[in-house]
């Protein structure tokens, strides 16, 4: 069981991970995008990091929604509205909650993914963040159903997301800036799927 204060600590760990990997994310985005994914995400998550301490007594729903609003207001690129919507929808699913268990996390995660699909008008298989997120959710749902614990759920989720990122290397981009490259986008892993994996890894490291 995680409480609101733990959620804040986890989100701070996410921000730290994004900051430390921003050069890598930018390199990936330079290969098939406009070279700003790492910089944008770091900028957005830095603001998130600054904001989080002031939310120490708020419920998990408010914390996640605030993160979402901060991201859409500061990231600047497509990741802003996409991650922004993800966190806002997750927040809506956690409204009023001061605690979150694995099943609750799975529900919030599913809501986040629905938000990304709605906002980006994408589905898995189009070389986007969904190719990491959807397999991760499937893995977590399987553990919830099997009555498993958070640690095993996240281990499986990370594996699935990792495979998803590797999969993005093999396919063509049909969404976003990378889609302008067409066939030339094949052979490069998607920056958005990579940042999604990093976020999941940061969470897993706290469990």
């Amino acid at each position: 069981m995680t409480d609101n204060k733990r959620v804040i600590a986890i989100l701070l760990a996410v921000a730290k991970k994004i900051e430390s990997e921003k050069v890598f994310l930018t390199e990936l985005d330079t290969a098939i995008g406009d070279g700003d994914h790492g910089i944008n995400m770091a900028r957005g998550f830095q603001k998130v990091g600054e904001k989080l301490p002031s939310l120490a007594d708020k419920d998990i729903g408010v914390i996640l929604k605030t993160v979402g609003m901060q991201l859409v207001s500061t990231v600047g690129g497509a990741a802003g509205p996409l991650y922004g919507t993800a966190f806002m929808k997750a927040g809506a699913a956690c409204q009023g909650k001061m605690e979150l268990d694995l099943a609750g996390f799975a529900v919030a995660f599913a809501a986040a993914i629905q938000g990304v699909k709605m906002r980006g008008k994408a589905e898995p298989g189009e070389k986007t963040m969904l190719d990491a997120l959807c397999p991760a959710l499937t893995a977590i749902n399987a553990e919830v159903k099997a009555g498993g614990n958070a640690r095993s759920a996240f281990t499986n989720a990370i594996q699935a997301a990792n495979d998803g990122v590797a999969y993005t290397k093999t396919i063509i981009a049909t969404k976003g800036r990378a889609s302008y490259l067409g066939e030339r986008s094949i052979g490069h892993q998607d920056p958005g799927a990579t940042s999604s994996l990093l976020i999941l890894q940061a969470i897993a490291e706290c469990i």
Partner: protein
Amino acid sequence: MVGIVVVSHSQKLAEGVLELAKMMAPTANVSAAGGMEDGSAGTSFTKISKAIDEVYSDDGVAVLMDMGSAVMTTEMVIESMEARKIKMLDCPVAEGAVVAALEAMAGATLEILEEKVLATRTIKKIND
């Protein structure tokens, strides 16, 4: 009068389109929401929000966007302004803004303005 908002990843592009629209329709209510708060490239929820506030009236607002996150961010701004009459117009941004400004200045409703602006998708510049 319908208000017009131009959203772009580029501050200069949005301001340039505004300049063009005002040149053609001097009394139209047009606002620009280009780039981030610090002027760097990207789309800003805050800028788009303020731009809509600037030109909003009961006649509504038409928003024109360049691409990608300009559309997604605008969607989120509009979702945060539930009670308002705002339309996102899927058109070439410069050409659409000129037609929008002319229509707005002529007193068109948001619905008529939308129709006229969407026609710019197939506009020909070089006539045979």
